[in-house]
């Protein structure tokens, strides 16, 4: 549980001559226990924004605060899952969990860490694979493990950067359900910042969807997702409200892209004449 605030964020890199602005004047507030998705085409700075909150990157201007305090670098109060490479390939599944628990919760004894690691491994159905190395697990299993690690660390908030982006659709649906299930179990739900480029995923999971546009990265609109939880795919995907919300998001999402495409089509037509 934590509030996140991004104030007047500008991120740019490169020398003055060829300066690239990744994020331009971004302000965002995420309240306690909310699940917020960031969507937008590639290059809109959604991953950069997540890195800022994780503390992996410093803004050129502005600041990020958590519960009213400006953050200064990464910390175990913010659990992060990336698309891949969240895990350490030289540690077995169990060791990956144990290591993260041991270093995020200082007062836990070695035995408690190990027991907790085992419990979380079981929670995501990977007990059988406890001494397997990540390199020998499938992409889906690796992400399950990364999510187990995040929950086991028990941080104040979850930051996820396209965690299911590399999975096939079936695995993806399974992981979405697992995530919502684990997240909803807590009485005091964690604050979640979730980066995706999949509109359906964003609606299914979030309370709020932040639509971003590229070059320079800006927040275009913040849209509320009013559907009650627990959400079921078959009910949700066929409801009128869902379809309206989805097309609204998609149109925001792709206004720029459609302009670009139209321009390109025109050029092609001119050439062919």
């Amino acid at each position, binding site marked *: 549980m934590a509030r996140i605030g991004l104030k007047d964020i500008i991120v740019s890199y490169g020398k003055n001559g060829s300066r690239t602005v990744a994020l331009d004047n971004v302000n965002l507030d995420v309240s306690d226990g909310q699940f917020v998705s960031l969507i937008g085409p590639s290059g809109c700075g959604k991953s950069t924004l997540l890195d800022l909150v994780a503390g992996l990157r410093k803004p050129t201007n502005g600041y990020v605060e958590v519960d009213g305090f400006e953050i200064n670098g*990464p910390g175990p109060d913010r659990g992060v899952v990336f698309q891949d*490479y969240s*895990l350490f390939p030289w540690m077995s599944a169990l060791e990956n969990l144990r290591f993260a628990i041991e270093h995020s919760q200082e007062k836990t004894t070695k035995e408690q860490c190990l027991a907790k690691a085992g419990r979380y491994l079981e929670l995501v159905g990977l007990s059988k694979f406890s001494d397997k*190395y990540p*390199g020998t697990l499938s992409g889906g299993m690796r992400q399950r493990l990364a999510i187990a690690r995040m929950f086991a660390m028990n941080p104040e908030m979850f930051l996820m950067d396209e965690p299911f982006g590399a999975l096939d659709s079936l695995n993806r649906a399974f992981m979405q359900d697992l995530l919502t299930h684990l997240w909803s179990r807590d009485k005091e739900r964690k604050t979640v910042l979730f980066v995706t480029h999949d509109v359906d995923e964003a609606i299914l999971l979030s309370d709020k969807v932040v639509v971003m546009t590229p070059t320079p990265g800006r927040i275009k609109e913040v849209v509320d997702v009013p559907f009650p939880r627990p959400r079921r795919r078959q009910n949700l995907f066929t409801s009128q409200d869902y379809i309206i919300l989805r097309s609204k998001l998609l149109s925001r999402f792709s206004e720029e892209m459609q302009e670009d495409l139209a321009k390109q089509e025109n050029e092609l037509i001119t050439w062919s004449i």
Partner: protein
Amino acid sequence: MKIDLENLLVTGIFVALLLLVVLVPNAANQTVHEGGNGIFLGVVAVILIIYIIGLFAGKDDIQKTTDIFLIMGVLLLAWEIFIGKLSLLDPFLFPSPEKVFAVFAEDYNIMISGLISSFAILMSGYILAVVVAVPLALLIGWRKRAFDVAYPIAKAVSPIPPTVYLPYAIVLLPTFSSASVFVIFIGAFWPLFVGTVHGVFNIDRRILNSARTLGLKERVMLSKIVLPAALPSVFSGATIALILSFITLTVAEMIAATSGLGWYIEYQHQYANYDKVIAGMILMGATVVVVMWFFDRIQKHCLRWQSVEGP
């Protein structure tokens, strides 16, 4: 188990070798004293038995083993026929295998003590280099400023052959052994250092970021994340360092030692005992093979997490 033509060929070559040694007398200038054929005969028999056991155990890598044994068998057979039986080359420079292997029976005392002293020097220098170079390189690779200073220096100094330092080491250090240890240390240091720094520099940013989000202390970060992540590159440096250590040791012993394998070869060389020179070379080769085998085992164990079919 499936026995093909090549398996039979290899077995045949070694059997032929045994028969040749037992039944056909060597050329007059290539014979050894009564019963002196025993060692060579024994070595060939042991090789043959090992091969046959391997064949019947049906190991997966029998193909590779067969190829190696075939090359070994052909070389030994050629040596036996052209040198031992026909004596086509100068018998003084090119002794028969019987003569060479008889040296092991004659000189085994001095060889074993030489082996022990060489091994002690090699391991001291090498392990010292590992203990110093790897942590230092981890720290330097991790801190950009230290790296900017150290890397150009490493580039300039690392290609200097370590034996260049030998005269200084002999003058400055109390014993020849400590001087040799020092020179091996220097020789092994640079490949280890460069390999480790290289490894640290090439760690995947995404893995480092994931580690940073855990909020690790720098000590934990270096020992639990940076070191294992750089380990594949550390090991390729360590392999080069080990090979270089062997060369350095031999050269160092040839220059100034009074015992050791390198010294033995050099000493026999001065007295033109070429059978002993060749025996020394065979022993050295065998030692290298054994040490590298153990090294390989350690490497495979430490890098067992690297999957072949991985992402």
